[in-house]
C-alpha cells in the first residue's frame, strides 16, 4: 500500500503532459546537427513541389494515373513497413484492410454528401477499428504463425467483401443494387475531379499520412516499438506495455491504410470484388521488403515497384506475370544479401560502382607512375 503511493508521487509531476523528452545536454555536435536536419526536409519539400507541378504536365494521363496509384499505395506500404520494419510483426492482411477502407469510403460517398476529406477521415477511423481486430492475433503469436493467421483473415475478408459486393449506388446497408444498368461513378472531391487534380490531392493526402507516421516514429511509440522489435522481454523490463504498443501499431497502420482505401475508391471510381485480391496482401509484403521496411523512403520505393513498374510493363505490352517472378527474385535477394532493402542497398551499390569507375579511370595514371 505504502509503496503504491510512492509510485504515484513519482508520476505526479507529469501534470504538464508527456511530450518527447527535452534533448539531453547541448552536445558539441548539436548545432551542426540542427543545420543538417533542416537540409533534408527542405530538399524533400522542393522535390515534392516539383513532382506535384511537373508530373501532370510531362506525363500522359495514363502515367499520371500510375503516379496517383504510387502516391496512394505508398501510404499502404508505409503502414505495412511500420508493422514489419519497426515493430517486427509480419502481417499478410493489409491488402484486405485496404479493401475494407475502400468499401467504407465508397459506401459513405454514395450514401452521404459529406466532404471528401471527412469521408477519408471516417474511412480511416472505421478501418482502424476493424484492422486492429485483424491485429489481435499478434498479441499471442509472432513470426510465421502471425503471418499465416493474418493471411487467413485477409482471405476471409476478401471472400466476405466479394459476397456482399462493393457499393454501386444502391440502397440498404451494402449499397449494392444488382439490377442497376447505369452505375454512377464514385464521387471525387469537388476540387479534384480531373485526373491531374486527383493526383495532386492524393499526393497531399499521402504527405499528411507520412507526417502522421513520422510524428509517431520520432516520439514515444517509435521508441517503444524499437524496444519491442529488439526483444519483447527487454521491452517489458523497461516498463513498456507491449500489448498496448503492438495494438497501437496496428491501429496506426490500419488508419492510414483506410485513408488510402478511400483514395483508391476516389481514383478508380468503380469498385468491384475483383479490384482487390488476397494475393495483393502477399505482393504488398514482397515490395515492402524489397523497398526497405525500415525506412519511409523505402515505402515510396515499394509503391513505385508495385504500381509504376506495373504500369510501365503494361504499357510495353509485357505480361504482368513477369512482375510476380521479378518480385519473387527480388525478395530472395533482399532476404539473402540486403536485409534493409533497396533504399539502403542502392547507395552502397552506387558507391561501389563509383569506386570501380574511378579505379578504371585512374588506372592509366597508375600504370604510368612506375615508369617515371
Amino acid at each position, binding site marked *: 500500500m505504502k*509503496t503504491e503511493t510512492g509510485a504515484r508521487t513519482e508520476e505526479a509531476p507529469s501534470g*504538464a503532459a508527456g511530450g518527447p523528452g527535452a*534533448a539531453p545536454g547541448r552536445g558539441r555536435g548539436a548545432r551542426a546537427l540542427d543545420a543538417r536536419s533542416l537540409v533534408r526536409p527542405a530538399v524533400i519539400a522542393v522535390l515534392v513541389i516539383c513532382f506535384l507541378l511537373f508530373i501532370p504536365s510531362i506525363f500522359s494521363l495514363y502515367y499520371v494515373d500510375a503516379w496517383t496509384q504510387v502516391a496512394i499505395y505508398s501510404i499502404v506500404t508505409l503502414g505495412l513497413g511500420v508493422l514489419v520494419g519497426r515493430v517486427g510483426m509480419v502481417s499478410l492482411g493489409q491488402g484486405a484492410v485496404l479493401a475494407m477502407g475502400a468499401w467504407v469510403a465508397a459506401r459513405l460517398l454514395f450514401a452521404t454528401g459529406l466532404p471528401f476529406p471527412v469521408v477519408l477521415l471516417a474511412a480511416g477511423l472505421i478501418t482502424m477499428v476493424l484492422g486492429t481486430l485483424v491485429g489481435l492475433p499478434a498479441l499471442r503469436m509472432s513470426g510465421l504463425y502471425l503471418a499465416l493467421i493474418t493471411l487467413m483473415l485477409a482471405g476471409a475478408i476478401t471472400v466476405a467483401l466479394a459476397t456482399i459486393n462493393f457499393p454501386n449506388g444502391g440502397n440498404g446497408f451494402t449499397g449494392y443494387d444488382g439490377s442497376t444498368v447505369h452505375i454512377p461513378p464514385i464521387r471525387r472531391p469537388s476540387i479534384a475531379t480531373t485526373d491531374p487534380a486527383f493526383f495532386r490531392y492524393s499526393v497531399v493526402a499521402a504527405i499528411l499520412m507520412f507526417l502522421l507516421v513520422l510524428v509517431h516514429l520520432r516520439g514515444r511509440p517509435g*521508441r*517503444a516499438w524499437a524496444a519491442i522489435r*529488439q526483444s519483447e522481454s*527487454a521491452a*517489458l523490463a523497461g516498463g513498456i506495455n507491449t500489448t498496448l504498443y503492438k495494438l497501437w501499431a496496428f491501429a496506426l497502420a490500419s488508419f492510414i491504410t483506410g485513408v488510402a482505401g478511400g483514395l483508391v475508391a476516389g481514383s478508380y471510381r468503380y469498385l468491384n470484388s475483383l479490384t482487390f485480391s488476397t494475393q495483393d496482401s502477399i505482393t504488398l509484403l514482397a515490395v515492402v521488403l524489397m523497398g526497405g521496411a525500415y525506412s519511409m523512403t523505402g515505402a515510396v520505393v515499394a509503391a513505385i515497384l508495385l504500381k509504376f513498374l506495373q504500369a510501365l510493363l503494361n504499357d510495353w505490352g509485357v505480361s504482368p506475370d513477369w512482375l510476380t517472378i521479378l518480385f519473387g527474385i527480388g525478395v530472395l535477394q533482399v532476404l539473402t544479401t540486403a536485409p534493409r532493402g533497396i533504399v539502403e542497398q542502392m547507395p552502397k551499390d552506387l558507391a561501389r560502382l563509383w569506386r570501380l569507375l574511378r579505379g578504371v579511370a585512374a588506372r592509366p595514371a597508375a600504370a604510368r607512375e612506375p615508369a617515371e
Partner: protein
Amino acid sequence: MIEVSDLTVRFGGVIPLDGMSVTFERGTCGLIGPNGAGKTTFFNVLSGFVKPVSGQITAFGEDLLKMAHYRRARWGVRRTFQTEQAIEELSVYEKVGLIHEQSKVTGSSRREDVLGAIDFVKLDIDPNAKVRTLGAAQRRLVEVARAVVGKPRLVLLDEPAAGLPEEETELLSEVIRAIPEHMGALVILVDHDMSLVSSCCEVTAVLDFGRLIASGPTDEVLRDERVMRAYLGTEEVMA
C-alpha cells in the same frame, strides 16, 4: 527487502525452481549456482515473464506476483539480461530514458535522472550517441544505467560481467557496489566470476537444481562443502 517462500516453477517435465525459499535483506546480494540451477528463471519470475505454479514473493511489503509485468519495472523491478539487449537505433539517452517515458516522469527531473544514471555508471560518452556505435563494455554499462535510472527498488543483474576483460570487470564492480547507497535499491547479482561476487556481495545465496542449498556471508558460503560439491564437475573451479 524481498522474501521468497516455496517458489516452484515448472516447464513441462523440467522443474527449474523447486520450492525455493530465500530472503534478501539489503545492499548487494549474490546469487550463484552452476549452469541450469535456475538463477535466470528466478529473475524471470521476479520480472513477471514466468508464472510460478506455487509460492509467494513479498517485495518491500508488496505482493509482487499480483503486479502486471510491465508495471513491475515502473514500480522498481529492474534488470539486465544475460544476453545483450542493445536497441541499436536509439541513442544512449533515449534508451536509458525509455522507462521514464513510460512512467511519464517528465521535464527536468527526467533529464536529470537520465543524465545522472549515465554519469553514475561512469559512461564518458555523448548521451546523443547511438547505441550501435558503442563497444561491448559500454553497451553493458548502458544496460546497467537503464536498470538504475530513476527510483529502482530491486536491481537484478544477470551475469553482467560475462565476457568482459578484467579491467572492465573491475570498473563494473565499482559501479555495482555503489548502487545500494546511491540509488537506494536492493541488488541481486548473478555471476560466475567469484571474485566479482565476493567483492560486491556481503551475503550470497546458492541455488542448485532449483533449491537453495546455502545462504549467508559470502566468504562462508563459498567455503561451504555442499557448495563446493555442487560446483564440482562444472566448468567453475572454486578458489
